[in-house]
């Protein structure tokens, strides 16, 4: 079994997995090592990081110095291919013409999906994050608790490799001793933020990111991940040995040819393929889940994009992990558009993104530093977890949920855009301009709010009543609305970041707007959309049960962000993987019992 075309697929599999990103690839990894025969459908092409990643290519070797275009929205060298904010021939629509009520949908079309370019930020949800409604009366509780997910967070961290430090801070869980890899040293702007943040009560410390700061321990980790399964241990050990440690250069958004960071194409999919239990069909765009008269899933109908023909593949279990939006679309398009697993009417409902806003500034202390290498681990080393839980619990704040702070600020590679803001170089040209660029380079900092959005009834997606994509599949129409909760949160973040910059003696860059509804990142722009098939306690008030299994269709599981009942400030990827592994263990157990 291996990478195949439609014509080479088996007549039936144990499990069909739609999607190859964090959720789908984790599912394939666990099921294949557990002995089930799986087929993975990926809407994009095959993608091979070892052969395709532009590692040391410079901006001056790229078209337009590598700057973003409608073809490559995050720049020429970003790993995302055949997608972005728009996918040619595959539109989506907005229910409202108002900018603040629109949703932006990022869709790569490639093996590994967004895991190829993501920020690698890997934060655990804390205990509060699974029971937010119990804590403040807003939003929805999950039917599971932190203790249910904790062991899976640990397994995922050991498998993919996550650097970071245990802080012991409230609702910011520690990992067991020895699980996290050593964090990288702080950069100048990060250490400065840490020093001055402390004075404001903001705890900057090592972030958790899925990057190998040293090689994974292939001698001991596989046995801890797969006890009593020497065959799986050997495969996983081989896969771990194939990954190199970070060499402290190149931006992780390009992907990594040496496997030093996590992307499903270098971490989950190779061992899954090595089991011989996985077929992958690229260019296979899933259209609907097929069901029989008894309401059980029997397979998936997909478009073979290489021929434009409809194809079917059959299995005992179907797992959707196509990204929350695409999973919703498949469910709504199933049964000839009558929808599937939707007796609650909640498929597509409660879509959440991360709350974002950004403030930048210039710090005179950081000017005129002598040149030195600050590339580091291809992304952030420090962040600040949310620090005001107690104030919220005491009713002292005008928003209920927290945000963490991600920061930028380093002597990173100039990327083709003007490295110095115009207001710092007014009137300058010639040697004075070059001297100013050298003076100010490295003195710019930026802070980003990454906050929790509370699910609301006005943020959802549904099938557009008329528009179809080029394959004839009805497309999604998005509805979006921020509540006062999110707007108050970004107002607080902006005030905090400005105070922080000023406390360092810096100047806050001018902002285009003072209105939260204008400076909040538009819906979808942080690319953390989750929800749409939430998990819950009963079939009446949710789509999935606590095992990511749909209430209505017993052999249909969802293992991307769609089952999230809340979207804490913690980036969703690690939780998607942990829940996917947990759901996969459940599928294996059910298969052993003959329940599937």
């Amino acid at each position, binding site marked *: 079994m291996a990478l195949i075309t439609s014509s080479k697929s088996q007549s039936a599999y144990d499990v069909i997995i739609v999607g190859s990103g964090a959720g789908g690839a984790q599912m394939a990894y666990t099921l294949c090592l557990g002995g089930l025969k799986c087929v993975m459908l990926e809407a994009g092409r095959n993608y091979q990081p070892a052969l395709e990643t532009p590692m040391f290519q410079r901006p001056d070797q790229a078209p337009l110095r590598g700057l973003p275009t409608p073809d490559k929205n995050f720049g020429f060298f970003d790993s995302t291919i055949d997608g972005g904010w728009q996918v040619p021939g595959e539109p989506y629509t907005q229910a409202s013409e108002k900018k603040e009520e629109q949703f932006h949908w990022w869709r790569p079309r490639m093996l590994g999906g967004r895991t190829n370019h993501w920020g690698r930020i890997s934060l655990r949800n804390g205990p509060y994050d699974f029971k937010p409604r119990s804590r403040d009366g807003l939003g929805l509780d999950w039917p599971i608790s932190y203790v249910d997910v904790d062991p899976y967070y640990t397994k995922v961290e050991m498998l993919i490799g996550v650097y970071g430090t245990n802080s012991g801070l409230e609702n910011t869980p520690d990992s067991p001793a020895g699980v996290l890899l050593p964090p990288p040293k702080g950069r100048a702007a990060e250490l*400065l933020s840490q020093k001055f943040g402390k004075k404001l009560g903001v705890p900057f410390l090592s972030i958790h990111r899925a990057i190998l700061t040293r090689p994974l321990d292939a001698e001991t980790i596989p046995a801890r991940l797969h006890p009593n399964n020497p065959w799986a241990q050997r495969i996983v050990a081989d896969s771990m040995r194939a990954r190199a440690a970070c060499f402290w250069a190149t931006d992780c958004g390009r992907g990594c040819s040496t496997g030093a960071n996590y992307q499903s194409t270098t971490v989950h999919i190779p061992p899954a393929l090595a089991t011989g239990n996985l077929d992958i069909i690229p260019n296979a765009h899933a259209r609907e889940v097929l069901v029989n008269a008894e309401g059980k899933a029997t397979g998936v109908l997909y478009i073979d994009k290489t021929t434009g023909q409809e194809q079917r593949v059959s299995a005992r279990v179907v797992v959707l992990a196509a990204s929350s939006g695409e999973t919703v679309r498949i469910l709504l398009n199933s049964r000839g558009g009558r929808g599937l697993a939707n007796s609650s009417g909640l498929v597509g409902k409660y879509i959440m993104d991360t709350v974002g806003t950004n403030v930048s500034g210039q710090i005179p202390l950081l000017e005129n530093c002598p040149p030195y*290498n600050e590339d580091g681990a291809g992304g952030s080393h420090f962040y600040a977890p949310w620090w005001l839980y107690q104030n919220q619990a005491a009713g002292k704040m005008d928003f209920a949920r927290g945000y963490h702070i991600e920061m930028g600020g380093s002597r990173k590679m100039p990327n083709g855009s003007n490295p110095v803001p115009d207001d710092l*170089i007014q009137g300058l040209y010639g040697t004075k301009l070059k001297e100013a660029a050298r003076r100010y380079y490295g003195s710019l900092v930026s802070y980003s709010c990454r906050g929790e959005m509370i699910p609301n009834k006005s943020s959802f997606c549904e099938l557009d009543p008329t528009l179809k994509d080029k394959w004839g599949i009805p497309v999604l129409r998005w509805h979006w609305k921020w509540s006062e909760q999110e707007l108050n949160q970004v107002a607080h973040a902006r005030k905090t970041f400005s105070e922080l910059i000023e406390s360092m003696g810096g100047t806050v860059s001018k902002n285009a707007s003072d209105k939260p509804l204008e400076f909040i990142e538009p819906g979808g722009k942080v690319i953390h959309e989750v929800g749409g098939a939430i998990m819950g306690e009963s079939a009446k008030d949710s789509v999935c049960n606590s095992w990511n299994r749909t209430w209505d269709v017993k052999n249909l599981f969802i293992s991307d962000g769609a089952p999230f009942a809340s979207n804490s400030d913690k980036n969703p990827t690690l939780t998607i993987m942990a829940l996917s592994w947990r759901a996969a263990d459940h599928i294996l157990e059910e298969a052993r019992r003959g329940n599937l």
Partner: protein
Amino acid sequence: MNTPNSNRLSRRAVFQWFAATAAALSAGEAALFGAESPLLQSAKPPASTGYGTDPELLRAYKPGELWPLTFNPVQKACVVALCDVLLPADHLGPSASSLGVPEFVDEWVSAPYPVQQEDRPLILEGLAWMVSEAASRFQREVPALEAAQLEALCESVCQPERVRAGFKNAARFFHKMRGLAMGAYFSTPAGWAAIGYVGNTPLAKFDGPPAEVLGKLGVEQTVE
């Protein structure tokens, strides 16, 4: 200040200078921006597509490879002159024109993407303004301007709040060109050296800022 290095023009270019100067002068300063000037015959880029959503990422590209370029010798000479007065050869590194910055600007105005197409008229009109100013103020073609004369052109547009009414668009052109030129210049190895970027090279370990920097900032390394 160095004089531009491409001041030897072909016969064809010389002819184009005459035509360009005559057209610019007859159009008049105020009509250069947004006008149907004969200088802007190529205001619309040739029809072409971009590099697509799945380009080859591992090879090096050169301006002109993916879409046809725009500049005629007159325009090219103006861009070279301006880029080199913005970012000259000096103790921090070579001139902009020696690092391919003018070719990048040509690639930029010729690109079949919305941002670049929006910049295109401003830049082409700004180049015509340079021709016109050189002729009316100094009775010279742009490549023949002395350093002080080029600087005088810059002085009249480089301070946004002090620019006189008729030069507002020229000032926008200047700032657009300065931003593009800086981006292009500092994304080359020589530009990295000029700005003080060190990196894009594999390391066995990451040490963080040196002691000298930590001392200057008054911080300690807090990660072992």
